[in-house]
């Protein structure tokens, strides 16, 4: 049994890779946890697709403002220095490549960087895509935050996605509970293996050949 990071630890790990001054969009679900671990002494500007740059923390219960929500429709606050804008401008910002980083959940990521995170394609399921496809192709760096394995033990890192795609060749890095992977020329490259995970043990779990980049110096991603 290999070491697995808790979801909160993984959020902390991702937060550590986000530099001061970055413009960041955190997808709904687990990625929103990353906000809890961004250092308070650094200025990192959060974008929410529904028209706000400079999103702050959740309000106190008595101070909920139904006009001020995030993409998950949760109440939020706005920082000094925030700006509001309409939806066409908000998605122009995303599509135009102005966001430095987005963090998204995933059902599957392929070794060519394809992302599937919006639909299982199950018959009868009600589809809903929201802004996922815009984020996937828009941010300068697209990070995925996910468990490595499904509940039934299959790898979410795959040769080719079987679920409907969100974006083609768009993922730069995958943060999983077992390890951090970069996408390098059509292959997964292990950048950091957590605990007793090793490149060979990860390759066995995933069923793909992996590049070993665990000796690479920790890099600060550009934004």
């Amino acid at each position, binding site marked *: 049994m290999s070491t697995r990071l808790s979801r909160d630890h993984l959020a902390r790990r991702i937060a550590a890779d986000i530099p001061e001054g970055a413009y960041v969009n955190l997808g709904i679900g687990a990625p929103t946890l990353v906000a809890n671990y961004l250092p308070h002494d650094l200025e990192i500007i959060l974008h929410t697709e529904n*028209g706000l740059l400079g999103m702050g923390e959740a309000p106190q*219960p008595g101070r909920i*403002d*139904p*006009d001020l*929500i995030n993409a998950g*429709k949760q109440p939020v606050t706005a920082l000094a220095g925030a700006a509001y804008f309409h939806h*066409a401008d908000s998605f122009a910002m995303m599509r135009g490549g102005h966001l430095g980083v987005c963090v998204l959940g995933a059902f599957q990521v392929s070794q060519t960087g394809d992302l599937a995170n919006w639909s299982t394609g199950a018959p009868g399921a009600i589809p*809903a895509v929201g802004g996922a496809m815009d984020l996937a*192709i828009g941010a300068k760096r697209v990070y995925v935050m996910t468990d490595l394995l499904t509940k039934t033990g299959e790898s979410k890192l795959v040769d080719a996605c079987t679920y409907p795609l969100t974006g083609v060749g768009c993922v730069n890095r995958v943060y999983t509970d077992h390890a951090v992977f970069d996408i390098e020329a059509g292959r997964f490259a292990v950048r950091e293996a957590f605990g007793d995970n090793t490149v060979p043990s990860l390759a066995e779990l995933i069923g793909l050949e992996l590049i070993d980049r665990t000796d690479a110096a920790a890099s600060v991603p550009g934004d």
Partner: protein
Amino acid sequence: MIDKTVTDAAAAVAGIPDGATVMIGGFGRAGQPVELIDALIDGGATGLTIVNNNAGNGDTGLAALLAKKRVRKIVCSFPRQHDSWVFDELYRAGEIELELVPQGNLAERIRAAGAGIGAFFSPTGVGTTLADGKEERTIDGRRYVLEYPIRADYALISAWKGDRWGNLVYRETARNFGPIMATAAATTVVQVDEIVPLGALDPEAVVTPGIFVDRVVAVGERPWLHAGAFVGGVDIEGRPAPFEASGTAEVEQ
């Protein structure tokens, strides 16, 4: 004298015929023009095509319109939510048609309609099932799909303050789709908290110039404001909620 104000919501939505395409502003509940939707329900129009980011929340507003089976088709990006049970049931019963559009393409297609753009190449959705059957082109090494404008007969939106020329300002993230929908409909109808005198809105801060607006109705101040200032004391749905010092907020996810 130009006076786009009307006295009540019924007058504001008057004339919307059966079969009309109606854009409805809002992102979830924020900016949803609930009073206009209620008037639309009362007006009786049916067979509508609705353009909205979502497909209704809970049992009020857009969800109530759906529940009355007035909507033939909905164009949206994110129908499935924890509180979209009205839509979910209609959809599973095959009683409503869904056109699912990635949110940014939805916004840009609405803008394109208002801006006189015939079509545009978007990188969003390329290679996905939502681009099936769409024209694709590679420009400067990047793949794009061709997207067409979305126009409407009516837009029903919610703003914060307006004047008799139809100039509008919004409030926080309730701005969302209002400004672009206002440009894309033959007739744009707006509910505001308050109609202010001409000249009271800062011309540098007007978000929707009156040229895009046909009718404005005041519906009174939203419950979490008092005299224009935020006072809170509501839950995320805007219902008065007594909070304990130790209370926890009801939070959507």
